[in-house]
């Protein structure tokens, strides 16, 4: 897969239109890598001039910050800002709402000011600019429910972009009882992804999966690699993996467009 890096671009004296921030999950996690590749296919189809940082990318520090380690967060942020500003990056797109939130809201006061897009917003723009079309026949009529990621939804009030894209797939979008601003967390936020949950009587991702299953979906759509993992685990726990699948919106679009 042809994925140019900022270093390549610079060597050729070029400045890409947008930097694709892959994120740690998107780079290393086997499930999340599929989302990354699906999004790159979409970027290619729309002829987007993009680049990634590749080995120069490092953790945004989001998980460290939510865990309470402000030191580590700011060290990461300042190193990343140095790299990004060195490449004169203006525009960033990412499939990870946590990176999105951190770049958008927490980097500016540390010297990193960028135009930041979640991939669903970016794809929506590609469509409205006429650079991308979504084929609405391949997934037609499928029952889909969308799980709002906290760091995209409540944290930044992005509720419509993912839904707009899902509707364009020609599917039947049904909402969970807890959705948009009242959506339930997948259980991974606030650095919970990296530790066992405190003692309780249920896992958060199981409760959230139950919310989703109540809509009787064929597909649970997500917009965050961590939500994706949590919901996938929830479906396995409920032993429903035979008839319910969990997909990122980028994956659904790639599938719809036969990419």
């Amino acid at each position: 897969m042809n994925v140019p890096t900022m270093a390549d671009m610079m060597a050729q004296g070029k400045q890409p239109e947008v930097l694709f921030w892959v994120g740690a999950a998107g780079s290393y996690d086997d499930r999340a890598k599929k989302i990354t590749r699906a999004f790159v296919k979409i970027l290619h189809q729309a002829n987007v001039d993009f680049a990634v940082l590749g080995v120069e990318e490092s953790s945004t520090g989001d998980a460290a910050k939510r865990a309470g380690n402000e030191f580590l967060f700011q060290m990461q942020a300042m190193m990343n800002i140095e790299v990004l500003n060195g490449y004169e990056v203006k525009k960033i797109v990412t499939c990870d709402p946590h990176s999105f939130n951190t770049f958008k809201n927490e980097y500016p006061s540390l010297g990193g000011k960028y135009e930041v897009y979640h991939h669903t917003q970016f794809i929506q723009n590609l469509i409205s600019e006429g650079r991308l079309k979504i084929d609405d026949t391949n997934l037609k009529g499928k029952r889909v429910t969308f799980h709002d990621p906290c760091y995209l939804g409540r944290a930044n009030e992005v509720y419509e972009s993912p839904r707009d894209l899902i509707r364009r797939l020609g599917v039947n979008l049904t909402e969970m009882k807890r959705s948009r601003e009242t959506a339930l967390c997948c259980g991974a936020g606030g650095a919970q992804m990296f530790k066992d949950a405190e003692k309780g009587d249920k896992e958060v991702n199981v409760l959230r999966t139950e919310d989703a299953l109540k809509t009787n979906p064929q597909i649970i759509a997500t917009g965050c690699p961590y939500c994706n993992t949590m919901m996938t685990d929830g479906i396995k726990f409920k032993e429903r993996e035979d008839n319910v699948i969990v997909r990122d919106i980028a994956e659904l679009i790639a599938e719809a467009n036969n990419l």
Partner: protein
Amino acid sequence: MQYLPNILFALTLAVGIGYFVMNVRKLSRNIKLGKDVDRTDNKSERLKNMLMIAVGQSKMVKRPLSGLLHIIVYIGFIIINIEVLEIIIDGLLGTHRVFQGIIGDGFYAFLIGTFEILAALVFVAVVVFWLRRNVSNIKRFLSREMKGWPKSDANYIIYFEMVLMTLFIVMNATDVPFQQAGIGNPISQFVAPLFDGFTPETIHTIERTAWWLHIVGILIFLNYLYYSKHLHILLAFPNTYFANLKPKGQFNNLESVTNEVKLMMDPDADPYAMPAEGAEEAVPEKFGASDVADLSWVQLLNAYTCTECGRCTSACPANLTGKKLSPRKIMMDTRDRLEEVGRNIDANKGAFVDDGKQLLGDYILEEELWACTSCNACVEECPVNIDPLSIIMDMRRYLVMEKSAAPQELNMMMTNIENNGAPWAYNQQDRLNWANE
């Protein structure tokens, strides 16, 4: 001797208001124990928030039943204050229903009639509140932090309101000339016949007694506020005005940390440099919060404003799955500890003397803090824009940066970020492998 009731009334009023003012000053001092944050920006947006959320109750109605009942009590409370004003003037001047002469019978009838209907509606609403709290098994009223005082406090408020509304109706029902005029008594006219067999003197005594109990009750209720969750009826207004306007996902970047990190990353910085001549030996700032004085005044105002409705807790994913965390308890603990610190200051002539206790550990447990997913559901839910999450985060910061007391798995995650630039132990050189798989 004929001025005796007026003098007595003025004294009662002075004591009632004086004690209240004293407590408000204590309240203000306690809130100012918090660190300073600037919330003077965006005045118009702040005002708009206050008008929408506190005055307009826009977030209350997200739960329609409790929202509607709350609005009835809220409107009743605000409008009946006009009646209280009349009572105060009558009490001080020795007049009777002074507004009737000023605004004329028609309008007066409309006003008092409205008050009576509202009083009846408020009565019904608080009866439903009582049933919801004491009979229906509504989960958010049964949490462990609602045992004891918080439960009785809520019931006392309800009883107070029932009694005050009853006294208002009885006072009107036993005001014989008022009943005979037949204006503005849509509810009390049905109560009046209850007193038919009584002598005029007895009826008058009942009227006077109800009148006095009503105003004294209001003064007692006013002074009860400081000790009660009911303080929200005053603090909801400043609390929504000073609430956070930034996106909910935006956590503050601690400035003290920024300075240290910049110094660390600056290749020209001399780590052994002596402080500049004349520069004060600065005490290094504590990172995060372990006690109330480490929190900001807005967070402390939040704690006093919390009315323990539990909407936050009922939306909290950790709480919903049986974990110890309850955002409401975080707010209640913060207020309890702040009150304790305030009493300590009062007992020690204006200075806090270490009592060997703190918010973290003695009130809020680490287990509660680590259960939070930082999802902002509690912040979204709060009808008066309280931010429990910010307190949780400040306390996590203290645990991690001052105490190095994060759960082991999080320490590993942080070590990985430090060494490999990712929360997992993968080599940074493998970051682009996905492109060729």
